C-alpha cells in the first residue's frame, strides 16, 4: 500500500485564538476507507476543510499524492471531491446543470454519460430537470454527492454523509461508498454513528479536542478492545460479593443485584459455565442474563472520557 494523503504537523488556531487543531500528522493509504470519529467540536470539519482548501492552516502541510496542497494546488485539488457537512446548494439551477457545473469547475470536459450514470446511481435521474429547491433534504445531499463525484476524484471526503438521512438512504450510501472503494477511490468520512465506522471503515481515527487520540485498523481495534460483558441479575439482593465470585473477577453493582463480568470472547467456553455453576453453588437465583459485546461506541466513550 502507498500513501495517497500525507498530513504533517497540521494545526489550526482560529482568529480569536481558539485552537481547533493541535499539530497533527496522519497518512492515509491509497484505496482505504478511513473513518474519523469524534464528538461535536472535535476538529473533524476543520481538518477536512484545511485539506480541501477552505481553511488556511496555521502550521504544517498537506501532500496529496505527492503534490503540496498549496504550492501544487491544481494537481492536489483535481484529485479531491468534497461533500461538506452543511447542506449548501443552489436553488434555481436544475440538478443536471449544477452537477455539470461542478465537473467544469474542476477542469474536466463534459461527459453526459458519466453524469447520467452518477444520477442514476444516486436515484436522482428522474429529478434531473428539477430545480434544486424542489428537492427534499436527503435528495439535496445526494446532489452534493453527485457534484463531488462529477470530476471522478481519487479521494473523497464525506463530512457526516448520513446526518439527517433515512435508513434506506444510509444503506444506499454505504453501498455507494463500497462501490467507490472497489473502483480504487480513497474515502475519508467523519461520522457520529459508530456503527457506520464499524460497518465500513478499514481504519479508524479518533479525534477529540483537536488531538488525534488514536489511529488503528478497525479489526485490530475491535479485537483488542472488543470485550464481552455479561450481566447477571439476581432474584434477591446480596450484601456482599461471595469470595468465590470475586476471585473470578465478577463485580457487584450498587443495587446488590447486578453481577457483571467481563471476558474475552475467545475464552467464553471456559468461563461462562464455571461462573454460572458458582452462582448456583452460592444458592443464588438468576432472574435475568444479558450479554453484550462492547462496541466501538464504548471504546470511543472511554477514550474521550479518559482524556477529560
Amino acid at each position, binding site marked *: 500500500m502507498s500513501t495517497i494523503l500525507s498530513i504533517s504537523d497540521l494545526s489550526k488556531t*482560529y*482568529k480569536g485564538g481558539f485552537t481547533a487543531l493541535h499539530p497533527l500528522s496522519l497518512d492515509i493509504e491509497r484505496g482505504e476507507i478511513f473513518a474519523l470519529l469524534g464528538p461535536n467540536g472535535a476538529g473533524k470539519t476543520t481538518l477536512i*476543510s484545511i485539506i*480541501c*482548501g*477552505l*481553511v*488556511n492552516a496555521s502550521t504544517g502541510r498537506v501532500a496529496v499524492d505527492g503534490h503540496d496542497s498549496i504550492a501544487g*494546488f*491544481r*494537481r*492536489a*485539488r*483535481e484529485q*479531491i471531491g*468534497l461533500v*461538506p457537512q*452543511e447542506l*449548501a*446548494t*443552489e*436553488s*434555481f*439551477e436544475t440538478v443536471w*446543470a449544477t452537477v455539470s*457545473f*461542478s*465537473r*467544469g*469547475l*474542476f*477542469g*474536466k*470536459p463534459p461527459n453526459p454519460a458519466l453524469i447520467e450514470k452518477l444520477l442514476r446511481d444516486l436515484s436522482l435521474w428522474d429529478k434531473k430537470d428539477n430545480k434544486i429547491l424542489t428537492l427534499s433534504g436527503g435528495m439535496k445531499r445526494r446532489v452534493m454527492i453527485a*457534484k463531488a463525484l462529477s470530476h471522478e476524484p481519487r479521494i473523497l471526503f464525506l463530512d457526516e454523509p448520513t446526518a439527517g438521512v433515512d435508513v434506506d438512504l444510509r444503506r444506499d450510501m454505504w453501498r455507494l461508498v463500497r462501490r467507490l472503494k472497489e473502483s480504487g477511490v480513497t474515502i475519508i468520512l467523519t461520522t457520529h454513528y459508530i456503527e457506520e465506522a464499524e460497518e465500513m471503515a478499514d481504519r479508524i481515527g479518533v479525534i477529540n479536542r483537536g488531538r488525534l487520540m488514536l489511529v488503528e485498523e478497525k479489526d485490530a481495534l475491535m479485537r483488542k478492545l472488543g470485550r464481552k460483558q455479561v450481566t447477571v441479575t439476581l432474584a434477591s439482593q446480596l450484601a456482599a460479593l461471595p469470595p468465590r465470585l470475586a476471585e473470578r473477577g465478577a463485580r457487584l453493582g450498587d443495587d446488590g443485584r447486578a453481577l457483571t463480568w467481563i471476558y474475552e470472547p475467545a475464552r467464553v467456553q471456559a468461563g461462562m459455565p464455571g461462573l454460572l455453576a458458582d452462582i448456583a453453588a452460592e444458592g443464588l437465583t438468576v432472574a435475568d442474563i444479558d450479554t453484550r459485546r462492547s462496541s466501538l461506541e464504548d471504546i470511543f466513550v472511554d477514550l474521550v472520557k479518559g482524556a477529560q
Partner: protein
Amino acid sequence: MNLRAIAAIYRYEMDRTRRTILQSVVAPVISTALYFVVFGAAIGGHMGAVNGVPYGAFIVPGLMMMSLLTQSISNASFGIYFPRFVGTFYEQLSAPISVVEIVAAYVGAAATKSVILGLIILATAALFTPLTVQHPFWMLGFLVLTAVTFSLFGFAIGIWADNFEKLQLMPMLVVTPLAFLGGSFYSIDMLPPFWRSVSLFNPVVYLISGFRWSFFGTSDVNIVVSLLMTLGFMAACLAVIGWMFRTGYRLKA
C-alpha cells in the same frame, strides 16, 4: 490555465442574468428612459447647448456611465456575495482554480452584462435624441474599461460585505453621489472654480469626461488623464482583490 472552470462560472453567471432578466436589464432601461423624459425632454428644452452639444445628447454619455457604474458594481458584488452567503462557494474554493481565473470569470461575466446594458441604453437614448458617436472605437474602449474596472470594484465589495446592508451601502452611499456629482448632467466647467477643483478628486469625473469625448470630441479634462485615472483605479481594485485572496480575507477562516 483552467479555462473550463472559467467557462463554467461565466456561463453560470450569464444564466443567472437570463433568469433575472427583469432586474438585470429592463429596470435600468426604464429608469434611464425616465431620466431622458425628465432631463432631456422636459428640462433640456430650457437649457442651452453645452460646449456646442444639445443638452439632450449631452447627458447621454453620463447616463450610460451612471448605469454602467451601478450595474457593474451590483452585478459583480452580488455574483460573489451570493454563493458565499448560501454557502455554495466551498466548491469554488476547493476546485483547482487560481485567483486570476476566479476573478476573470466573475468579473468577465459582470462586465459583459454591463456592456450589453450600456449598449441597450445607448439604443434607447437614440430613440429620444439624435446622436452621433465621433470615436466609436474609443467609446467601446471606455465602455469595456469602465465595466471591467467597476466590476472589479464590485467584486471586492462582494467579498468585503458580510451582510446585505453592506452590499447595498457602498453603491448607495458612495457610488451614486460620485456619479451624480461626476458631471452626468453638467460640464464641470459650469461649476465655480472652487467646486471645479473639488470635482477633480472625483474619479467618476474622469470616466464621464473621457466617455463624453468619445461621443462629441470635447471633454472637461484631458483624455489621456482620463484614461490613466481609470487604469489607476483598476490597478488599485486588482491589488485589493489579490490581497483578499492571498490572506483569505472573509473567504477562508
